[in-house]
Structures are given as structure tokens and as C-alpha cells.
């Protein structure tokens, strides 16, 4: 984050000086008062200037983009980061020549990067925003695969009259399966076990 330390006769003077030095509007500055100004005798003797630290405020989307750009650079991964920010969501699309590395086995790496980004971006912020990272439409395709899997397994449970326990999945993936089978007339789903090994059970109604 870009910041400067400035002084002035009043707080206002110091803030204006900071805005000029950083070349931004003053409402984009986060101000930390280091020393309150002290008026001297007759306004002349023994007075002390105000001292502040001013930092340029960044949106959470900007913080996210900076974090990922630096992360990918240190991972030696050539990538273009595209960020869309709404009130409660930061949605990121990453593109580049080697996105298979970023996705990893069953999206394992993509999930890890998404998790760490979410932690880092929300750490210093007052508001919480969910971070979702996707590349080459991986999440959408994975969702379609899970929907097909859910339907196939529901059919099997109905036919064999035996319950099926699925592999451990993350909350997002479990949600896809639950909602796919929510209205199924023959089967019911629930989750068992503790994170990160929580798994779905598809059973006969």
C-alpha cells in the first residue's frame, strides 16, 4: 500500500500535503494521526506541528488482484488476473498457458489458492467478501460433472435399494449434489464426518 508521512500546522494541512504527494483525492486516503498539533503560546512559541501517516485506500478487488499477481509471479506461473467485485463477492478469472498447474488434481490447487486468497484479502478488512477463483471454466464444468454423477448415483440407489457413500468433498461440491437431489422422489441426501473429510450419503427415502 502506498503511504507517506507528512506534517502541517493543522491536521487539515498535513492531510492536504499527503494528498498532493500521493496525487490522489483526499477521500481515498486512510489517515493515521501520529502527533496531534499543539498550539503554542500566542500561536507562536512552543507549538508543535501535526504529523500524520496517510495511505492510499485500496478496494478489496484491487487487494485481491495484487495478491494474486504476486503469488503467481512467485509460483513462476504466467497468468492474467481478471477481478470482478460486488458487495459481498470477489470473483476472479485467471487465464494463461498453463492453467492445468493452477487447477491441480480435481481442483485441489485452485481451491488452495482460493482459500489462501480469501483469508489474506479479508484479514485486514472490516467487511467480509467471499472470494471465488476460476480458470478455463473449471468450476462450471465440475458442477456439471457433479450434477451428472448425482443423478446417476440416485438412480443406482433407487434400483439397488442400497445407500451409497461418496468421496469426501468440499462444501461447494456437496452443495451441488444436495441441491441436485433435493426434489428427487426416491432418495434423500445428508453429509457425514468432519471437514475436510465430510462426505455425502445418498440413501433411499
Amino acid at each position, binding site marked *: 500500500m502506498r503511504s507517506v508521512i507528512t506534517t502541517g500546522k493543522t491536521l487539515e494541512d498535513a492531510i492536504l500535503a499527503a494528498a498532493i504527494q500521493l496525487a490522489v483525492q483526499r477521500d481515498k486516503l486512510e489517515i493515521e494521526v501520529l502527533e496531534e498539533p499543539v498550539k503554542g503560546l500566542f500561536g507562536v512559541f512552543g507549538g508543535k506541528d501535526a504529523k500524520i501517516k496517510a495511505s492510499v485506500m485500496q478496494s478489496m478487488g484491487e487487494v485481491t488482484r495484487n495478491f494474486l499477481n504476486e503469488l503467481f509471479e512467485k509460483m513462476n506461473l504466467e497468468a492474467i488476473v481478471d477481478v470482478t467485485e460486488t458487495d459481498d463477492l470477489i470473483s476472479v478469472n485467471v487465464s494463461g498457458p498453463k492453467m492445468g498447474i493452477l487447477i491441480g488434481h480435481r481442483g485441489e490447487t485452485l481451491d*488452495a489458492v482460493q*482459500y489462501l486468497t480469501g483469508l489474506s484479502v479479508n484479514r485486514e478488512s472490516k467487511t467480509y467478501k467471499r472470494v471465488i477463483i476460476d480458470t478455463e471454466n473449471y468450476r462450471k464444468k465440475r458442477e456439471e460433472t457433479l450434477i451428472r454423477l448425482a443423478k446417476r448415483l440416485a438412480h443406482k440407489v433407487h434400483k439397488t435399494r442400497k445407500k451409497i457413500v461418496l468421496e469426501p468433498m468440499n462444501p461447494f461440491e456437496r452443495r451441488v449434489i444436495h441441491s441436485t437431489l433435493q426434489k428427487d422422489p426416491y432418495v434423500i441426501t445428508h453429509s457425514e464426518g468432519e471437514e475436510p473429510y465430510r462426505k455425502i450419503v445418498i440413501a433411499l427415502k
Partner: protein
Amino acid sequence: MVELVSFIARSLVDNPEQVDVQRVEEDDAIIIELRVAPDDMGKVIGKQGRIAKAIRTVVKAASLKEDKRVTVEII
């Protein structure tokens, strides 16, 4: 790899200046040793080691090209 682990750790903890990362070279492996302030241990390990696991997963992805196995140890 040291820089990568250091960057991730510094972005998670409250005392980034106390993050220390060392690379230890062994015959068939590279060990990345991560040290943080005692108060920050939870910030790099997480509930049931979830954060530590995510850090290791990212490092594993970044070290695919290395011919040695790279492991991250939190000390």
C-alpha cells in the same frame, strides 16, 4: 520457493516481520522451514491444519518442475 512461502505467510499473519523462511537441502529433498511468531502459529496452520495444507498444496504445484521433492515444515 522460499520467497513463495514467505509471501504467503506474511500475508496471513499479524507479525509479518517475524516470518522467517529457510531452505534446507537434503540428498533427495528440499525442506522449506517456516517460522512465525508464537501468536501467529494458528494463522499458518488453521483448524485441523487446513491453512498449512493449502500452503503445501500451492508449493507442490509450484515445484512440479523441481527434480527434488519439496516439503514445507512449520517449526
